[in-house]
């Protein structure tokens, strides 16, 4: 596919991610930090986010399915996930974490389980979107083009 088309596809796709609330300005901040000295900075940070989040989601599932739920532990994990998602601009994940923390404060197991389903859903959605975005970047570079800036 011609470079111009790839670049347009990339910009359109990226634009929808922001428009649909998957990403916020913090993601743009990460992109602006990427430079010659750290050409894969965004990919590195997002990969860390993926690894960390999946561990946290597994822990959350384990902790919430105990007989006696340790809500403090659940809250600590959600706090971590909220911080990580906010740092990379994963807005929808972050927003569910806010509601999730409220359920922890209320010691509402059912509410927490519902939030866990939502946050898992939002996480895998944004993961899928970001993987597509990075794949488009790779296609542009492989075709000899440069990845257009979104700002």
């Amino acid at each position, binding site marked *: 596919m011609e470079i111009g088309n790839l670049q347009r596809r990339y910009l359109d796709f990226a634009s929808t991610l922001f428009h649909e609330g998957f990403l916020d300005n913090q993601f743009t*901040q990460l992109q602006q930090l990427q430079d010659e000295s750290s050409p894969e900075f965004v990919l590195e940070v997002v990969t*860390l986010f993926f690894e960390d989040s999946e561990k946290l989601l597994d822990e959350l599932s384990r902790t919430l399915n105990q007989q006696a739920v340790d809500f403090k532990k659940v809250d600590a994990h959600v706090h971590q996930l909220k911080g990580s998602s906010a*740092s990379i601009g994963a807005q929808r994940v972050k927003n569910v974490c806010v509601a999730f923390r409220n359920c922890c404060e209320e010691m509402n197991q059912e509410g927490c389980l519902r939030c866990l389903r939502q946050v898992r859903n939002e996480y895998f959605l944004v993961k899928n979107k970001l993987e597509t975005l990075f794949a488009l970047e790779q296609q542009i570079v492989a075709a000899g083009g440069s990845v257009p800036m979104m700002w």
Partner: protein
Amino acid sequence: MFCSSIRMANSAVSSRGRRALVVEDNAIIRVVVRKLMKEQGIVLEEAENGKAAVESVKDGKSYDLILMDREMSVMDGHEATKQLRLLGVKTPIVALSADSQQCDRDLFLRAGADEFVEKPLTKDKLAGILSKYGLQ
């Protein structure tokens, strides 16, 4: 899960040798702060909780700026700030938190923090902090 060791983040030293300490338990947030500081030519040390930060100061280390997270295991930001001030630390301490409730800000300021900045830390926010404390 959380170790209390201090890790030197990078060895880039500006001609003025400005040093900062970020006290933050989230590894991803530390990676971003590390990059932001590197852009500014600031030597950054990292502590994964408040206790590690206090130990660092007790070991004789000094900083031009301390960025302090609120919620951390072992020792939280409020307590760490209080202890650092009791140790005689005059370094600007900027509290970082994702929750911006007034009572939380007040608590931090009463503990001895100079300022409260909402997370996530951005280029502009950091530039503002550095400018305010003469570190730019």
